[in-house]
């Protein structure tokens, strides 16, 4: 290919971090006006590669050409100057400032005094051009997730970006918003923009990409291949290198009595707005109830009211014992286990050892807890046993938990929570950010618990996961349960519609 036709050409890129070779002699090209998908599991190196293109990292070796010209970015400013704009997965927006203020951040204009009115108008004009509507005076925290993403996109367009990098843009969108985004992307390419689309979702690659590059463990396994005639199965193989099993065997099981009962539970979120609206649910022993939904619709609050981290109105009982509005210790004593959404911020103490982290829930009980003392010898032994059993990679049980990789950390948390043979488990995004191997391990562990009679509430944004593991599926949207179906009868279109807020219409 003639380099001058290419919007971007990255050759032989090597990027490394302490202990990890993130990009191993990677080649990547982007043609003008195309949508090029960059596919790979979590940790494959996709974001790293694109961060280098956006000027955030410097490759150890390799070259980058933008529109034919060799470039050497030292900071994001340099990349922006060359027309590269990045729309991040985790939005880089200042919540307390307005849309316009966020778009103007980092620019050399206005010279000194902000003239918001003038710039509000300019932003509106830009919105018209691309069909991305958002109120310029609104503060970011007031906007929905989809609207915030539009602000991220506007940021890049305002700076004249013609090469856009979108990092997992659909992770936080409802199916309808995803459609809108796809339309926006097509409209942008028609106007001459070139788009790189980072994702791990095979379905989206098939839907929208012109070409695809697949990364596996830092190396390229498929380079800029056309999407003509390529199926999800082909992509999966490139991603993982072996046949990927999309569903896991879930044996039939007799369900037992009701363990969790929620009646008319309502709760506010951290901003004082309603997050849960009269939610009623039941989970029985030996079943997994999957809660599907786009992030930000009340899932966090749902987990928190059950585990005692948030107050609510209404009643929550575990085997008829009330646990709502009581401190977390009450739920713990009632046999509730919690796999938190954020494993680093909530689930672990990074500077304490593996042992310290393992006994976090069980240190009050015999034999590890012994009156005023803790028997650390026993605790170490116990942790070692778990480490072997769950295959957690770490130098020793004394290693600080913060040094563990995401997958191993999650296994540690799971080991801790499962080991107490819980009656009830809240598993929130249990496999987020993990590679396929780890995901399979964790799914197996969850199903094993189900087999042993635990009642499990699985809250996840990955429909694959919901469908594979759940016996029944409920959909949450804007704090309300839209409907509950048996998973055999579940129809993905129906679920998708419920996720966007339409009630289940069935008798």
């Amino acid at each position, binding site marked *: 290919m003639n380099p001058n036709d290419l919007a971007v050409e990255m050759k032989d890129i090597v990027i490394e971090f302490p202990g990890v070779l993130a990009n191993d002699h990677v080649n990547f090209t982007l043609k003008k006006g195309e949508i090029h998908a960059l596919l790979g599991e979590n940790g494959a190196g996709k974001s790293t590669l694109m961060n280098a293109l956006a000027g955030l990292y410097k490759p150890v070796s390799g070259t980058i050409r933008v529109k034919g010209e060799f470039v050497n970015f030292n900071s994001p400013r340099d990349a922006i100057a060359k027309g590269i704009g990045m729309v991040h997965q985790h939005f880089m927006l200042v919540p307390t400032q307005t849309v316009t203020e966020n778009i103007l951040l980092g620019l050399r204009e206005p010279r000194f005094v902000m003239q918001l009115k003038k710039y509000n108008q300019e932003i509106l004009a830009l919105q018209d051009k691309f069909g991305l509507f958002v109120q310029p005076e609104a503060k970011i925290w007031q906007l929905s997730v989809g609207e915030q993403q539009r602000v991220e996109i506007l940021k890049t367009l305002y700076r004249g970006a013609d090469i856009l990098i979108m990092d997992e843009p659909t992770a936080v969108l409802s199916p309808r918003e995803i459609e809108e985004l796809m339309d926006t992307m097509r409209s942008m390419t028609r106007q001459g923009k070139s788009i790189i689309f980072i994702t791990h979702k095979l379905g989206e690659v098939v839907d929208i990409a012109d070409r695809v590059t697949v990364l596996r463990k830092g190396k390229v396994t498929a380079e800029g291949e056309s999407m003509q005639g390529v199926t999800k199965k082909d992509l999966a193989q490139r991603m993982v290198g072996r046949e990927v099993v999309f569903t896991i065997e879930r044996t039939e099981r007799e369900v037992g009595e009701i363990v969790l009962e929620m009646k008319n539970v309502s709760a506010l979120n951290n901003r004082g707005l309603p997050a849960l609206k009269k939610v009623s649910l039941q989970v029985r022993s030996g079943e997994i109830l999957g809660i599907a939904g786009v992030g930000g619709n009340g899932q966090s609050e749902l987990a928190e009211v059950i585990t005692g981290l948030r107050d609510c109105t209404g009643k929550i009982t575990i085997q008829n014992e009330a646990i709502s509005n009581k401190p977390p210790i009450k739920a713990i004593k009632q046999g509730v286990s919690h796999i938190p959404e954020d494993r680093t911020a909530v689930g672990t103490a*990074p500077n304490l050892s593996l042992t310290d982290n393992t006994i976090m829930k069980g240190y009050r009980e015999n034999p590890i807890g012994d009156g*005023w003392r803790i028997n650390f010898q026993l605790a170490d032994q116990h942790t070692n046993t778990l480490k072997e059993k769950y295959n957690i990679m770490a130098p020793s049980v004394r290693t600080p938990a913060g040094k563990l990789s995401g997958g191993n950390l999650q296994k540690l948390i799971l080991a801790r929570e499962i080991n107490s043979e819980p009656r009830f488990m809240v598993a929130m995004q249990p496999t987020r950010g993990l590679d396929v191997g780890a995901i399979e391990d964790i799914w197996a562990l969850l199903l094993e618990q189900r087999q042993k009679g635990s009642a499990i509430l699985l809250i996840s944004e990955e429909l694959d996961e919901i469908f594979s593991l759940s016996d029944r599926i409920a959909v949450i949207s804007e704090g309300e349960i839209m409907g509950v179906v048996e998973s055999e009868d579940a129809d993905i279109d129906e679920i998708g519609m419920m996720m966007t807020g339409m009630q289940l219409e069935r008798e």
Partner: protein
Amino acid sequence: MSIKLRIEQRVEDVPKWLPIATSVGSVVVAFILGGIIFKIVGGKPLQALSFFYQAVFGSWAVFSDTMVKATPLILIGIACALAFKMRLWNIGAEGQFYAGAFGASMVVLVPLIPEDSPKVIVIGMMLLMGMLFGGIWGFIPGYLRAKYKVNEIITTLMLNYIIINWNNFWIFDQWSDRGFQMTATFDRVAWLPRLADYAKEIPAFSGVTLHLGVVFGLVAAVIVWWIFRFSRWGYEIKLIGDNPTAARYAGINISRNIILVMAFSGALAGLAGMAEISGVVHRLQESISPGYGFTGIIVAWLAKLNPFAIIPVSVLFAGLIVAGRELQPAGLSFLLQGIILFMLISSDVLLRYKIRLVRTGEESA
């Protein structure tokens, strides 16, 4: 090919000798820098250093003086370590010390018990009252932090100023001894036993002012060490200090622990105040502390919050104070402490990152 310095994050465990090295290194650098500044202002650093050496390793009498100064440092150092373990910044040890001194003095000066009570009762009451008042002075900022999320650094500091003025009122006014700015000397019954008391039996002890307070310090070190290492409470404190969100999720009551730890910390500092009043000064007066409450903070950090390490570090700083008596200007010890603490936190970065020499042009694995 050229050699470059590369700084990268540590992935493996920190080598065991490194924390000790950073502590020792900080002190050495501080001495050097302090010496230089001292020289600039016209002092004689080498002479000062020899005073210091004498204070710690010289005659028994001087060493005993040093140990007497180390006693409150040990207790306050442990008090601070307890709070800091939970990332509660108790800067009010100085005030809690004064509060404890007040409480202990109350026993004698009010008086709270009959004047002819046996020594055991008197000392016992003073101990209790000292810890009680220190505990209250720790409880207040703890409560404010737990209930209203008020920053404990500022509240503990403000309370320092408040209690000093409170004490002064009683010293200058109600309890003043014939109008002097101090109270009357306590009866012997209210004095902590000293080695000098046994001079008749053991002549070597003549003039040795080392008092029972040092035993308080050692006992406190053992107790708090045990708490940190083996107890449930110590584990909870560690967890809250490292990640309060995780602690909450684990069912730990953070508010209650904030109050408990601050009160306990205050009680230990108050005990130091009682020991100083009863063992050394034998009266309540305006100046009973050359900044023990602040030096204790540095001691705790230098000892990396380890109760046993606090003991030798306290001796070191006590030596500085004793040597400093001969020195002008008075601010030098403050300066040294500042440099030590600054060096200490600067060197903490070495625990998180390591420096490697790399040949560029080489293939890195």
